[in-house]
């Protein structure tokens, strides 16, 4: 029963196998070569450092399929698909090599007892999974999962593979039954007695259909969306863990900061990742912009980049100019500006794509063209001139301290342990100033040695950078760094999570004489307050006995993993936290990030992200307080409560406000 020892059309079968294999490999290699050429023509960036953590990611996200399990219905089926695929691929190559080199003294994979058993059983399971996958597409299609021709082909192919395998085992079993072939035995019993030659030729037929299908699959994969089968494991390996917390692109040429408007202006990784998208729609399902009725879909950003790549680089790699422009004909400016940079898409992505870096690359290009809406332009001008988005005199930055009955140390003049960087909203927005005062009172009450920079502090540039104004970010960063280098302090504490993110991840502050060359520790005020409580520096005088819900700010939670300190504080001061369905890393953005707070809604939308969030909170039982830990959240959610008419049911409170309430003795 050796399927290659026969003659087909008078030709020795193994010769035929050679021919088919070479044709298949030819198409595969041709495409792979083209892709590599394209990647080499894109801009460089470094993605091969930290080898060990890359391996760890590979184990976690490829072998362990960790991200897949955050959507329950598909988690296990995909896990089985994946491992089934690995197993089948291995046995396929084994069989192919045995077929190409018939003189090798090894059996076919399915002839090895345990292997054959596993192949058979998993074959059945895969068939069942296919039924689930097909019915998911046909009957229970989740939003944003695209029905495609490609998916149809691939599912049919897999079905053919499994059916031919199982039938083949069945035909074999009609002749000699073994305990290692339980499924084959079942199928054989269905066929009943069969002539030896008929069974052999049917078995051979199945074998050939199977192997030719796989070889067809091999040639077809790199031309289809199922390229992700091959590219996504590589993509996981290429992950830089500090993206998008930091938008620095390692070892990329200077021009990268001028943005990208065509394929060869992106880095090779940004190009490569478009080929790894499985179009599963996870990112779309969590995107606050898309779900509010905006046009932006993170999936289609990568998809359109890929289509553009097909239309340009794949057609003519050397063409200077394309007839159709990536920004304009494939992706609209509008979509690019709708991103709140909340990172939900990246958090969800099963293949660890970095949607944000591509969006910001294109924003950088638009900024370079001066193509920015008037309100943002106005803000950038104010930021350039006054160092804050409010367009106020720098001298007013510490005006909020006027209401305090103690003086906050001037960190420019005396050494402090904690240097407090408040950010613009905490210092200038009249709605937030009293909360900043509350934080100051808490620090003061706990005896924390802290100070501020008074008018020397400038906006940290986090949002400016995410708008794509890289030059202004560098300018602000330089100005802040200059003053920070002259200031004596041990730690930095921030009020604004956005400020927190950029100083922690993008400023790369270290000062040899202060911390032995280690990076300076940056804390969010909730972390500091939590520590002050835990170290009994801050005495709680009153339990608030309230029930509240807590909103994780994107730049604190998803970006930097700070989930527990705020919750622990609330628990200590007697606030019972009832979680919203979307909490921690699945928290839903307020809509202010990435510069959105300065942009206008030009088109009619369903509801703002902040409104959706308020409705989510209102639906909770007994919750009347919506606790936040970000000054921009105060502004966004206070508005949303008004626009949704929930003033009676819900109030927004900053965590500092509640802490002060429980600390203050009077």
């Amino acid at each position, binding site marked *: 029963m050796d399927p290659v020892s026969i003659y087909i059309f008078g030709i020795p079968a193994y010769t035929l196998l050679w021919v088919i294999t070479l044709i298949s490999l030819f198409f595969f290699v041709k495409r792979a070569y083209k892709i590599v050429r394209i990647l080499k023509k894109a801009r460089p960036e470094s993605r091969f450092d930290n080898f060990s953590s890359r391996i760890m990611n590979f184990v976690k996200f490829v072998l362990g399929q960790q991200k897949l399990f955050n959507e329950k219905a598909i988690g296990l089926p995909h896990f089985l698909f994946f491992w089934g695929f690995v197993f089948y691929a291995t046995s396929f190559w084994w069989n192919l090599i045995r077929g190409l080199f018939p003189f090798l003294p090894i059996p076919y994979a399915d002839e090895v007892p345990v292997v054959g058993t596993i192949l058979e059983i998993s074959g059945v399971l895969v068939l069942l999974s296919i039924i689930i996958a097909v019915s998911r597409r046909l009957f229970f299609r989740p939003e944003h999962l695209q029905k495609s021709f490609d998916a149809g082909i691939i599912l049919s192919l897999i079905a053919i593979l499994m059916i031919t395998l199982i039938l083949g085992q069945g035909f074999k079993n009609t002749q000699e039954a073994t305990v290692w072939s339980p499924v084959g035995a079942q199928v054989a019993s269905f066929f009943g007695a069969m002539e030896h030659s008929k069974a052999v030729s049917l078995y051979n037929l199945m074998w050939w259909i199977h192997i030719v299908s796989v070889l067809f699959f091999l040639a077809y994969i790199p031309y289809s969306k199922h390229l992700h089968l091959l590219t996504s494991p590589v993509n996981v390996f290429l992950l830089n863990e500090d993206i998008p917390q930091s938008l620095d692109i390692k070892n990329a040429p200077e021009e990268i900061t001028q943005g990208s408007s065509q394929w060869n202006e992106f880095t090779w990784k940004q190009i490569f990742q478009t080929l790894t998208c499985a179009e599963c729609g996870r990112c779309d399902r969590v995107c606050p912009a898309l779900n509010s009725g905006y046009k932006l879909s993170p999936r289609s950003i990568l998809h359109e980049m890929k289509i553009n790549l097909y239309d340009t680089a794949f057609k003519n790699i050397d063409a200077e100019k394309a007839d159709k422009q990536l920004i304009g004909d494939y992706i609209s400016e509008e979509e690019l500006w709708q991103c709140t940079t909340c990172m939900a898409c990246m958090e969800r992505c099963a293949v660890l794509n970095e949607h944000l870096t591509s969006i910001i690359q294109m924003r950088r290009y638009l900024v*370079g063209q*001066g193509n920015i809406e008037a309100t943002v332009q106005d803000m950038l001008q104010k930021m350039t001139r006054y160092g804050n988005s409010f367009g*106020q005199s720098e001298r007013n930055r510490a005006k909020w301290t006027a209401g305090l009955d103690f003086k906050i140390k001037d960190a420019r003049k005396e050494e402090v342990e904690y240097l407090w960087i408040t950010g613009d909203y905490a210092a200038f927005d009249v709605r937030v100033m009293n909360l900043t005062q509350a934080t100051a009172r808490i620090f003061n009450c706990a005896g924390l040695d802290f100070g501020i920079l008074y008018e020397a502090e400038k906006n940290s540039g986090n949002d400016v950078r995410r708008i794509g104004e890289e030059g202004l970010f560098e300018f602000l960063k330089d100005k802040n760094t200059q003053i920070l280098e002259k200031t004596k302090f041990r730690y930095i504490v921030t009020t604004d999570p956005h400020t927190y993110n950029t100083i922690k991840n993008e400023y790369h502050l270290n000062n040899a004489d202060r911390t032995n060359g280690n990076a300076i520790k940056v804390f969010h005020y909730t972390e500091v307050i939590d520590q002050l409580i835990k170290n009994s520096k801050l005495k709680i005088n009153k339990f608030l006995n309230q029930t509240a819900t807590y909103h994780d700010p994107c730049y604190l939670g998803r970006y930097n993993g700070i989930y527990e300190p705020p919750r622990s504080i609330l628990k200590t001061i007697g606030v019972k936290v009832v979680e919203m369905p979307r909490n921690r890393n699945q928290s839903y953005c307020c809509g202010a990030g990435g510069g959105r707070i300065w942009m206008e809604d030009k088109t009619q939308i369903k509801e703002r992200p902040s409104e959706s969030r308020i409705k989510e909170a209102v639906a909770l039982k007994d919750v009347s307080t919506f606790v936040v830990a970000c000054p921009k959240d105060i502004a966004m959610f206070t508005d949303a409560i008004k626009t949704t008419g929930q003033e009676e049911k819900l109030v927004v409170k900053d965590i500092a406000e509640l802490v002060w309430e429980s600390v203050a003795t009077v």
Partner: protein
Amino acid sequence: MNIVVLLKMVPDVVEELKIGDDFKSLDSDWLRYILSESDEHALEQAIILKEKYGGTITAVAPEAPEVDDALYSALAKGADRVVKIKGEWDIYRAPGLAFVFTRFIEINNLLGEHTLILSGSQAIDDLEGELVYYLAERLGLPGCCVVTSVQYNSDGNSITLLKEFSAGLRGEFEVSLPAVIGIQAAENPPRYIPIAKIRSIMKTQKIEEIEIPLEGVPPGIAIEKLFEPVGLERAEFLEGNPEEVSRRLVEIFSEKGII
């Protein structure tokens, strides 16, 4: 079609203005300078015209704190040449500046048949009136201020412009070139230039610096004193939370028969 844009820095009123010890000038410790708003519009209008009709733009400004930023920004926006006139300019107002700009234009031979000279319509410190008319008188050219739109006419020898009057009325005028025009507002708000572009301009291009002899320049009229507008009738301030204040306003509106 050559355009000369005359720029000037003025005190930034976002910052607190303090009167100096002499009570005749502003305390320089508290001052920051910013390009006069209508000059910013004049520059924008020049760029718009250059984009539409071609030509070259020369931007010139007297030396002042932060003037370099304004001039580099002008280069980044599309000016071909930027010039800083060295010197201390505090005491010179529009008549003096008109003298200096006239000398500058003469020395550099900038006045061609089709030259358009643009500047801001009025600045917040124009105690002696508008530069544009003084300059027009000195150069013997037609001058017009409060302009919000400029188009070249097809003959190439004249421009059509819109001047604002009051009550929403505007007048359309035809002015033969060369001319001195004071821009109130450009057709589009002044554009934003990314910092990176300005920084790279700073590295690759230079601000020309020249000195103009000051003999014969009319000094400004003497200020007796400066003072802050205190003691004026001030509004009666309403205090309280939004609800209380709103209630009070509704009462006032009712009393006055408005609602």
